[in-house]
């Protein structure tokens, strides 16, 4: 038991928590924007892979790190545009479109990586973001600038959603699109904008893995983080502040299980520890299910002017 407290008392543990949480914060905010506008975006897993790959590739090709992040954001935005075209423009099933995009984006990324590096035994690397040692705050100083970006994104998104006209329009479009249309707001435009912006965030979340947490691109790198973001949004009741909390909580357990594995008196197989984050996500979903107040138009296709 004392070993448990030793883990918590060690600042390196909290550094890991914040690092693990960063892509989750960005990804969850991305899903939140899409779903608040009424659209489920299951493309997140593939978009994160694509963002991880294209961002890294740009830096490998000589671009500065922030340019790589921008490339990842643009990749996400482009995939988001495709999803918007299929679900908002053509009113296709949001489930199928999202899954199709995950498959497509993942396949394209892996293909692109193999074409670019056909015969490598160890993955090529880049120089990732450096720690922010100029910051006088503990734990934060050991993070990279991308983590700061993720933390700042939370209040920014909250402000946009609740204190600007476009945020109100976005929320209305996710609650009652007919009402929005009847007050002169184009549902199609707002939804497309939300999906593109949200997907850009997802792309950036992916690039964190290759430009900050690690310095190379691996297959199966994202490993379900996208799906966990989808679960976290429900857990967060579609609110940015709670999304931050959920991501931190999840990262806490993920970091914990890594360290528990290394404890001396461990009797449980390591796989059980690895299962913990996924099991917790399911438990969180079940606990929140009863009182979840979904955006009322979520997953309902809206066809303007149809009888």
């Amino acid at each position: 038991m004392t070993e448990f407290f030793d883990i918590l008392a060690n600042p390196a543990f909290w550094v890991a928590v914040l690092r693990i949480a960063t892509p989750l914060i960005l990804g969850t905010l991305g899903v939140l924007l899409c779903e608040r506008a009424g659209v489920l975006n299951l493309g997140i897993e593939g978009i994160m892979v694509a963002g991880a790959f294209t961002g890294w590739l740009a830096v490998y090709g000589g671009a500065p790190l922030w340019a790589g992040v921008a490339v990842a954001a643009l990749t996400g935005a482009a995939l988001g545009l495709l999803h918007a075209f299929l679900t908002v423009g053509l009113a296709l099933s949001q489930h199928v479109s999202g899954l199709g995009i995950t498959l497509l984006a993942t396949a394209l990324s892996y293909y692109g990586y193999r074409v670019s590096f056909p015969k490598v035994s160890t993955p090529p690397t880049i120089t990732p973001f450096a720690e922010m040692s100029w910051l006088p705050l503990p734990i934060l100083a050991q993070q990279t600038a991308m983590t700061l970006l993720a933390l700042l994104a939370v209040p920014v998104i909250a402000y946009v959603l609740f204190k600007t006209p476009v945020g109100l329009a976005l929320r209305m479009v996710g609650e009652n699109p007919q009402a929005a249309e009847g007050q002169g707001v184009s549902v199609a435009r707002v939804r497309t904008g939300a999906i593109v912006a949200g997907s850009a965030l997802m792309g950036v979340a992916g690039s964190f893995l290759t430009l900050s947490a690690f310095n190379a691109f691996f297959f199966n790198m994202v490993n379900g983080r996208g799906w966990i973001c989808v679960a976290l949004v429900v857990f967060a009741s579609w609110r940015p502040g709670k999304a931050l909390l959920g991501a931190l909580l999840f990262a806490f357990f993920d970091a914990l299980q890594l360290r528990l594995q290394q404890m001396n008196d461990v009797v449980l197989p390591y796989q059980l520890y690895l299962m913990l984050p996924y099991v917790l996500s399911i438990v969180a979903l079940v606990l929140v299910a009863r009182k979840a107040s979904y955006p009322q138009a979520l997953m309902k296709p809206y066809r303007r002017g149809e009888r």
Partner: protein
Amino acid sequence: MRLEKRSHSSSAAMLLAPLGAVAFTLMISALLVLWAGAPVGQTYGLLLKGGFGSVFALSETLTRAIPLMLTGLAAAVAFKARLFNIGAEGQLYVGAMAAVAVGGLHGGTGFDLPPALLFLLMMLAAALAGALLLLGPALMKAKLGVDEVVTTLLLNFIVLLLVSLMLDGPMKDPSAMGWPQSVALLGDLELSKLIEQTRVHTGLLWAVALAVGLWALMKYTVLGFDIRAVGANPRAAAFAGVSVTRTVVLVALLSGGLAGLAGAIEVAGRTSYLTLDMSPGYGYSGIVIAMLAGLHPLGVVLGSVFVAGVLVGADSMSRVVGVPTYIADVIVATSLISVLVATLLTQYKVKLK
């Protein structure tokens, strides 16, 4: 951009739609082939030959198609009831685990039953394992409103870890010298080959029979009506006296069971033991196949042969021309999206404002 429903869909459009989808897909993948620096024509030729161009190629394709048929059927029946089962991958693996548990672990010391009976028991256990795995998320959806997409997805990861755990411990093959695989099935329990000198096994007959059975169930039985009604309009179905919860449970058992069987048949017909990498995403490909087939069981049979052919062809093509095999996944994913768009365009006109 706006959609306007067509007053009558012309039969010309219905024919052009899938062709247009195929053409678009080939165009996109041609660009990718060019990026890899390979000749497009030769690549496509090798792809076709590698998948369908010889008896051997066909046998490989059919072998690969068997688990795809079963996961495709699993997705088709679930999606028809609007139960979005994305967990076929995990259900496949628990089915394989159950098969090995019944048919491998106790060889000689445990279940002392005639092989035929043991085989049936093994299949039943696999189906049950897959079914129970899906039952949890299905009930969570029916009773608590928890979205089954995320829960079934997360379970896939959990199951894969469980398989790894089993292979490290209880199911470890002592003679494999550290290689992560399980004990093998009893030889008597393996499925026999359909064609000599090839890998195609009688599991194909099982899969096709199950496809026909599912088709008959959906079209001709009361349960089939229940499933279609619940999928199309649960409120109206409840009004008509259909028990929605009972139907969802039965669909979960069917869908999970089919995916579990996919795992067992793979073990019994192709690998003989359980490994961590025995399924390169068959569960997810099954979903794509089901959508391509319009959720029609017989269409799933055709769709799985198509997808298997592309996958097998890509493998053999890659060895010659060097284009990465991931192009197969790109082709499959692009086909899905373009078929969906094409089908929609047969019913709606697109009007630019």
